Every structure is written in C-alpha cells, then in structure tokens.
C-alpha cells in the first residue's frame, strides 16, 4: 500500500459510516445465506470482498441496493434504512452505481443511450447535458469512439468498461462491483481493472466482490473474507495477506494464491 493510500485509509477511519450492516440475516427458503452480518463501511473506503462461491459475498453486496431483501437486522445506506419503502429504495439506487458480472448492458440501446437512460429518466437531466456527461465518462474509460455502436458489437472488456461508465453517469456516491472480471477473457481483465484502479484513486467509495487478489492488494483499504454466510475476517490488505488470523482464511489464500 502506498503512503497516500495509507493516509487515506486513516482519514477514512475518522469519518462516519456510509454503509452499515447491523445483525443482518437472510434466508433463501430454508437456506441461511447471511448470518449476523455486522459491518460498516466509511465514506471513501475501498472494500474488497472475497470468499469461496456460495459464501454470500454477492448476496451481501446486492443487499446494499436492495436487489436482495434481507429478513432480519438493519442496513443503513447514507443514513437511510433499506426496507420496503419504495421511495427510499429508489432514492438510494440513484446514488449507488452497480457493475455486474455479466455487464447487463441493454442490448437494444446504443452505448450512448445505455449511459444516458438513467440520467434522463431518473435524474431528469436534459438530454444534451446527459450526452455530454456520457461522452466524458466514455472518454475516461477510453471507449468514446464506440458510442454509437450496440453492446453486441463490443468485446467483453469493452462492455464492462461501458457498464462502469454507465454507473458513473449517475454520479453515484457508492459503486458496487459484483465480480466484474469473472466473465472476461484473461486478455481483457487488465483493461477493466485499470479503470477500477483509476476510480479508486479518485476517492470513490467502492465495494468490490472479486477474486483479483492483485487488485485487492493495490487498492483495497480493507479486505473482507466471507465463508458460509459469515464474515470470517476483515483486515487491511497487507495484514490480511501476510498474516491471516483465521485458519479458514489461510486455507482460502493458499488455494487461490498457489495455483
């Protein structure tokens, strides 16, 4: 971790939490998928969530913008409780961008229309302004020359960068990444990670579910390890990787780092 990142992490600790999980429990039918999650994320913090498949890491992340409902406990996002109040959910979703494993771009719209859809309809931004902003973010993810193409004409890496730009167009306060590189060919992972690193350096609050341990080492303020619906360990990356406290974490790390 660089010095500036260290400084940022310390600064972040002083600030108040922007996402708070209090005793969160969730079941899929009888399956207890999240067990007593207690966790808080401060403004500007970059969190990487890892763990074996089925450990609940995606589910926990998706609870933040209520793509998944939890049944017990409270989740506060930006001070607003996520419950059945549709108005609250819609208000929070405006401020929380999300990037999915399978990009989920809208195939019937051009890249530019994908980016301007939410600003125009949710934020009521004038079309021209929304398009200018979209082009700005497309340039940032280095894909502005593809603006008038359809998602189906782009490579996976390009589509995922578009998806990130689409999230940014809503000018969110939090970005959620749900395994953003897992569906990509190895050659394309780097171009997506580069964009995410750049975003992290600008101070965006990020929650990222990923198996990219290199990414976790470089940009994360804290790495969270989950297994069987619980948070096993959450620590600063150098301590997490060099000195894991829990035997389950040690086993996981040995499996993913030594192959």
């Amino acid at each position, binding site marked *: 971790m660089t010095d500036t990142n260290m400084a940022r992490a310390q600064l972040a600790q002083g600030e108040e939490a922007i996402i708070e999980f209090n005793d969160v429990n969730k079941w899929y039918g009888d399956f207890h998928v999240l067990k007593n999650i207690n966790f808080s994320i401060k403004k500007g913090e970059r969190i990487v969530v890892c763990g074996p498949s089925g450990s609940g890491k995606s589910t926990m992340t998706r609870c933040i*913008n209520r793509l998944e409902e939890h049944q017990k406990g409270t989740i506060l996002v930006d001070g607003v409780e996520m419950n059945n109040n549709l108005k609250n959910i*819609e208000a929070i*979703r405006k401020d929380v*961008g999300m990037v*999915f494993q399978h990009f989920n771009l*809208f195939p019937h719209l051009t890249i530019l229309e994908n980016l301007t*859809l939410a600003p125009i309809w949710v934020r009521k931004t004038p079309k021209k302004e929304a398009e200018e902003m979209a082009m700005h973010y497309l340039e940032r993810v280095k894909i502005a020359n593809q603006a008038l193409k359809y998602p*189906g004409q782009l490579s996976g890496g390009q589509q995922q960068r578009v998806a990130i730009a689409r999230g940014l167009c809503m000018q969110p306060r939090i970005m959620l990444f749900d395994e953003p590189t897992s569906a990509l060919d190895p050659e394309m992972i780097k171009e997506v990670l580069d964009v995410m690193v750049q975003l992290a350096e600008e101070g965006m609050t990020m929650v990222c579910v990923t198996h990219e341990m290199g990414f976790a080492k470089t940009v994360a303020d804290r790495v969270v390890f989950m297994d069987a619906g619980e948070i096993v360990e959450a620590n600063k990356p150098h301590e997490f990787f060099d000195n894991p406290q829990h035997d389950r974490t040690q086993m996981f790390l040995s499996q993913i780092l030594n192959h």
Partner: protein
Amino acid sequence: MAIIFKPSPSLPPPVTSVGPVAWVRQNLFSSPLNIFLTLFSLYLLYLLIPPVIEWGFINATWEGTSKAACTGGGACWAFVVVYFDQFMYGLYPEAETWRINLAVILLIVMVGAFAIKTINKLYLSIAIIFAYPIVAYFLFAGGIFGLEVVETSLWGGLFLTVLLGVIGIVASFPLGVVLALGRRSDMPIAKSVCVVFIETIRAVPLITILFMASVMIPLFLPEGLNFNKLLRVLIGITLFSAAYMAEVVRGGLQAIPKGQYEAADAMGLTYWQSMILVILPQALKLVIPGIVNSFIALFKDTTLVYIVGMFDFLGRIQAANHDANWLGTTVEGYAFAGFVYWAICFGMSRYSMALERKLETGHKRN
C-alpha cells in the same frame, strides 16, 4: 530476437461453393434422394400449373351479367367483377363509398409519412392512434358536416373484415401487454385478476364469445341501455385476442435475462420506466413472430362474425353465391376470397420479417 507473427492472407472461397450453379447443386441435387424429390416436384408442378392457368386465365370469362355468359369452360370471373363493390363495401350506399376510400387513403398517407425524415414521429404516432380513429369513425358513420348517416348494420364486405381486424389488433395489443405484465406482477390482486381473465377467455371458443356479445348481452342489459352490435362484437374480439396476446408477450418477458431487470432496478428506474424503456422493447422484439402469428389468426377469425349475422368479406361472397343468376360460381368466389386473404396475411408476414431485420442490433448470435 523474437519471431514476428504475421497472419496469413485471407483467400477467396473455392469457385464450386459460390454462384447459382453451386446453389442448385447444394440445394437441389446434393444426394440421390434430393435428386428424386426435385424431379418429382417438377413433375407435380407440370401436372398442376398448366390446368390452373388454363382455367383461371386462358378460358376464363371476365364480362357478363349472369352465369350463362360464362361459356369458355374456365373461371367465371364475371361474377367477381359484377359483385366487386359489394364484396368490398357490403351494403354501404354506393354513393357514399368514397368515404371509405378516403379513410383508407388517409391512413396510407399517414403511415407512409413515417418514411419522411423531417417529420416528428411522436406527433405522427399520436395523430394515427388518437386523431385518425375519430376522423375515420365520422367518415364511416356520418352524421356531421352534412354526411349522410350510414347504419353500422350496412357495413360489410372487405371493409368490415379490415375494420374488425385492425381495431381488434390495435386494441388487443396494449391490453395484452398489460395483462402479461399483470400476470407477472408481485401484487396478488392484479395477478389473480389477470390469470382468471386470461384462462377464462382462452378456454372459450371465439364463436361463444361472439354469441355472448350479439345475443346474450342485450338480454341481460336493462331496456334502453343497449349499445351497438358492431361495438359489442368488436369488444368481444378484442378481449379474446388480448388473452392470447398476453401469453405471447409473457413468453417474451420470461426470455429476458434477470440481469436486465436488475440493471434497470439498480439504476433507480421505477417499475413502469424499466418496463417501457428496458424490458418491453426487448421482449416484444423477441416475440414479433408470435405476435404476428396471433394477428394473422385474428384477422382470419373475424370471418366468424358471419355466424352472428354480420356480412364481412367472406359472408358477402357466400351470400352472392346464392344469387339465382350466378349459381355454380362458388369456386370462383372462394378462390377470390382465398387470394385476398392470402395477399393480406402474406403482406403482414413480410412486414414483420422486415421489422425484425430493422430492429436487429447484433446482440443475437446467429
């Protein structure tokens, strides 16, 4: 020093795999069975086509005032020529048929205007969907601007067929979409209402619904609260078609990956925004073949109004067959009916294929 990789140049395909000769060889004479089938089909065509052309054109009679004039031994098209106006307009007063023609021309012009680039497509759509029906209604029914009133009982022929078909299609489509969304809704009441409606209507034959509309409803309604039979039949046809449409659209909604719903939700779109902007455009495009299938079926099903005493295109032809002057012209009448239905349905089918091609955005793997 590393070896530099240079891709080999692309070569054209071998001559034997392109061009018409290759096409014929691959598609018609690729195996002994295919050779046999090709020759057999050619023989069947040889048996069929010359007699049909002889009957329909060479020996056909085009002029005359009764069956007796048809002496050529071929088709008696004079029957169709004499009755043509009635087949087209039913019993609509002859002096007033220009009103129907005008309405048709107006519609063609308005739809054709979509091709003009400078025109505002939204306003044009609104004009076609909301203003045109009012104009057309007063043109058909009369009663204002000194237009003579024409009772709906006089409406008939192809005019009535197209009217029933078009209104049935235009009205059942949005209703079907709403029913499909309702059936997939989380709201228990909306969902059960839609399920009960769809399953009830689909379980009943169209004839039953038409009988209900024309005979039963007037019995149940109190005296003086009756309304036009054509309108009742139209409502029946619309509800019937909407139930089928709903299931076709539901198929499309189910084919949209969950990720599309999630992405729309995650960006804060409301339910109706995500449906109208994200889900339906994709779902409807997927089910264009099914939708057009329903439309074509509905268009042909409208002939059933004959059962409740309305003389549509086919009804008019059947009635004319009973004319003592033209006995024995049934084949010509049905051939004409078949040709007109085929032309209209084939046109709908070609249009839908063109629409699918136009909406293709390259995300589908062929």
